């Protein structure tokens, strides 16, 4: 049987737009690593955050890059977390996001993803 070749880009597109829904490796890689950025912001009690903060330090709740001394792995993750797409798709909300109670002077700070902001093939 003769099959007609299609551009790999088309194969990886969603079925709704005429593709076959195969994962794009690069985007999938970035999406998976993006989870690191998210967890390191969100779950600061985790062992990973504690290890990395002991090694590289924290400023304003965010881990520092460590410069040239940092491991290759952390350099990659850190660079990714600093990319624009990540910063523009997270937001910080105080309290429950709608009302803010100033009674006790500690509000729970949480970060949440804007809905439908990550247009990745996952």
């Amino acid at each position, binding site marked *: 049987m003769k099959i007609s070749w299609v551009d790999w880009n088309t*194969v990886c597109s969603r079925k709704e737009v005429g593709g076959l829904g195969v994962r794009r490796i690069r985007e999938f890689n970035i999406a998976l690593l993006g989870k690191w950025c998210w967890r390191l912001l969100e779950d600061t009690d985790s062992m990973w955050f504690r290890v990395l903060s002991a090694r590289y330090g924290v400023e304003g709740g965010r881990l520092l890059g460590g410069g040239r001394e940092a491991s290759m792995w952390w350099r990659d993750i850190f660079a990714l977390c600093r990319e624009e797409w990540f910063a523009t798709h997270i937001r910080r909300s105080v309290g429950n996001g709608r009302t803010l109670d100033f009674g006790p002077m500690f509000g729970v700070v949480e970060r949440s993803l804007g809905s439908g902001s990550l247009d990745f093939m996952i």
Partner: protein
Amino acid sequence: MRAILLLFEALSGLKVNFAKSQLVGVNVASSWLGEAASMLNCKVGAIPFVYLGMPIGGNARRLSFWNPLINRIRTRLSGWKSKHLSLGGRLVLLKSVLSSLPIYALSFFKAPSGIVSSIESLLNCFFFLGGEW
């Protein structure tokens, strides 16, 4: 060290298989490491080593780092009689098996673009040609 491991065995009910274990030192003299390993009845390991299927201590920016992963995909492909599979069958295998193989590594390391394209070209050849070219 042995005492700690024995304590762990007693507490958890798990048993350490020393014959399968490796002792890896970080800033430790190799003579001491060798002695400790023979005391414990285990082997001396070196960085990088594979732990839970992931290479530890390697440099993910090097292409050679990714060779085990590429080979894993290759061996999977060579075991399949891909030419006798329909296009639909190959698509199912591609989506369910082949693109899942690298997930664990990709969830931890950033793949260099050369590796991304060689994985994609492997998948591409499998899908359209039913083998490796």
